[in-house]
């Protein structure tokens, strides 16, 4: 389905702007907001545990894990235009997977559970992508979103009905994660671990999206047919990014399981998928930092407001989401970030190109 002029996705002229040297150099002269924003957030996140009380640090750790999860949704929706309403499937499956590893085999070493969770997410996403995205007929966006939504719903139902997986109650009291002989419990230590992982994955994603692969993805989101005419295998590109995002969701899910100490069916189901859609749309899809900011704002607000307005908080959240979709389709990030910078430039830097051209 073509998405030209949909508002919520960036218009295609931006890619041309990156290609045209005149416009790009005019742009390069202006101050860039994005690196400043990223650096400011990183500094704020690094010193936060020193200033916050312990129980808030624990909460902040959870928010960072959810940021990681939001990144995974942003990659598929904001960059490849795949509306995955079942992103929680990979998050929850990895969570359940590592919980089982811990319960049945006593495995808690970070070097075993994180790769295992990531792998579970990756394989599950690859299989689902293989079914939903690949094939003779290109799949419509509606079909993919319905398929992923159904996947999450089905997993939720099955987990609820399964005695092995603990049914309604999930799997409680998972042992703490260990690094060597050191037990990692909630608090600043866990916080910095998650922060490090988040920064690492953020940078990897940033690198990936600024490469030729990212350029092809951006083109895909703008005009799928044109990219197909250029000779790209559109469905393969989509499946690859979907699997990568599944892997990231898997990492987030396994961290979440060990941080909370238990897993339950909401992690798999529609509830969690809704959450992540909310974070990313709120912050601004199509920018990695938007997903992080959206998560931080939504979770921060809900931490602050839900004590006083517990009953109406979900309604407020829904109204805010609707307002953002209607009036700020690019998310809150678009208040400070210009359109050109949001999409940025691709491939080798412009200076090198200019030197190479003549």
């Amino acid at each position, binding site marked *: *389905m073509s*998405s030209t*002029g*949909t*508002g*919520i996705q960036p218009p295609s002229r931006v890619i041309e702007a990156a290609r045209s040297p005149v416009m790009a150099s005019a742009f390069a002269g202006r101050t860039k907001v994005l690196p400043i924003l990223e650096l400011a957030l990183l500094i704020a996140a690094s010193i936060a545990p020193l200033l916050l009380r312990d129980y808030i640090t624990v909460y902040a750790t959870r928010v960072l894990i959810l940021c990681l999860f939001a990144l995974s949704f942003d990659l598929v929706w904001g960059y490849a235009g795949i*509306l995955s309403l079942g992103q929680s499937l990979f998050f929850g499956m990895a969570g359940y997977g590592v919980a089982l590893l811990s319960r049945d085999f006593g495995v808690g070493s970070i070097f075993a559970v994180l790769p295992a969770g990531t792998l579970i997410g990756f394989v599950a996403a690859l299989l689902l992508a293989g*079914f*939903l995205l690949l*094939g003779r*007929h290109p*799949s*419509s*966006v*509606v*079909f993919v*979103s*319905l*398929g992923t*939504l*159904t996947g999450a*719903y*089905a997993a939720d*139902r*099955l987990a*609820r*009905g399964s005695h092995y997986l603990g049914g309604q109650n999930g799997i409680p009291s998972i042992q703490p994660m260990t690094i060597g002989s050191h037990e990692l419990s909630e608090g600043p230590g866990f916080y910095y671990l998650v922060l490090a992982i988040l920064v690492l994955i953020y940078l990897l994603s940033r690198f990936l999206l600024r490469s030729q692969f990212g350029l092809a993805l951006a083109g895909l989101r703008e005009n799928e047919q044109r990219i197909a005419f250029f000779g790209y295998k559109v469905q393969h590109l989509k499946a690859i990014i979907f699997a990568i995002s599944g892997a990231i969701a898997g990492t987030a899910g396994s961290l979440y399981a060990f941080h909370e100490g238990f897993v339950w069916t909401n992690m798999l189901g*529609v509830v969690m998928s*809704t959450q992540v*859609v909310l974070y990313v*749309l709120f912050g601004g899809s199509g920018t990695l930092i938007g997903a992080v900011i959206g998560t931080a704002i939504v979770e921060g607000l809900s931490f602050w407001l839900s004590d006083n307005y517990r*009953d*109406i908080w*979900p*309604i407020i*959240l*829904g*109204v805010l*989401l*609707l307002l953002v*979709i*209607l009036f700020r*389709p690019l998310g809150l990030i678009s208040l400070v970030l210009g359109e050109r910078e949001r999409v940025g430039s691709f491939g080798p830097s412009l200076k090198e190109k200019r030197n190479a051209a003549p």
Partner: protein
Amino acid sequence: MDTLLIAMFEILSFGAIVVLVVLGLGIIASMMGIFNFAQGEFVLLGAYVTYLVHSVGLPVPLGMLAAPVVVGALGFVLEKLVVRRFYAAPIVAMLGTYALGLIIREAVRGLTGGLYLSVPEPISGSITIGSLHFATWRGVIVIITLLVMAASHALLAYTSFGLRVRASLENPSLARASGISTGMIYSLTFAFGAALAGLAGALIVPVFSLFADLGIRFLIQGFVAVMVGGVGSFAGPVAGASVIGTFSAWLPWLMSPVIADVLVFVLAIIFIKFRPQGLVSGRGVNR
């Protein structure tokens, strides 16, 4: 033999419920090209209105009459305020209606206090034929579904309103050039679809009882049914709903309900994968 007849009746009445839920969704999807993710919550709202009328002491059938009117009116207002901004962008429409649904769902959850609330059947008891007993209310649902289906089809196929709706579907700019106010037609069509969902909610609330997540299940079921049947025609969603309804009611007799529930959806998704145009391919309303 007796069990078979009872099973057939169960399947028929559950199929009728699914058809009722899907009809509104299918009409909005086919006639307007909008996948309304708030449709499940319109069902929920219809159920809630019925409960509200019942809880103030008025008779339940009155609530069932009020539900489609209230939900239809709300649909009209929402279309004017929100949904019409999305026609150019069907994917954004999904997200926007998703947000609308979230608001309705959470509002109802707040109002009901997260409880399961029950509404009595307006016509209770059962009909006895020979040695078999059938719940009367389920029979009533089947009959009402048939009537609503026939009326909707007649409305779209034979009235001048239906002609305008179909004209706006086929070629909006030509319809506007011929003096049809397509904006108004879209508002009315959306309101009509919402009213059907409201009616469905009102009729099923005695069977399922009222709880905030009532809508989600029907939403997924409805979407799967519309896609299985095929978007764009009147017959498609109805056919899809019959198939999904039949399987949803029949499979639990063969296996555990949880597995059956999931299996129906998985089979449906596989079917859609290999036949994206659905059971009934084609557009418009056959006369």
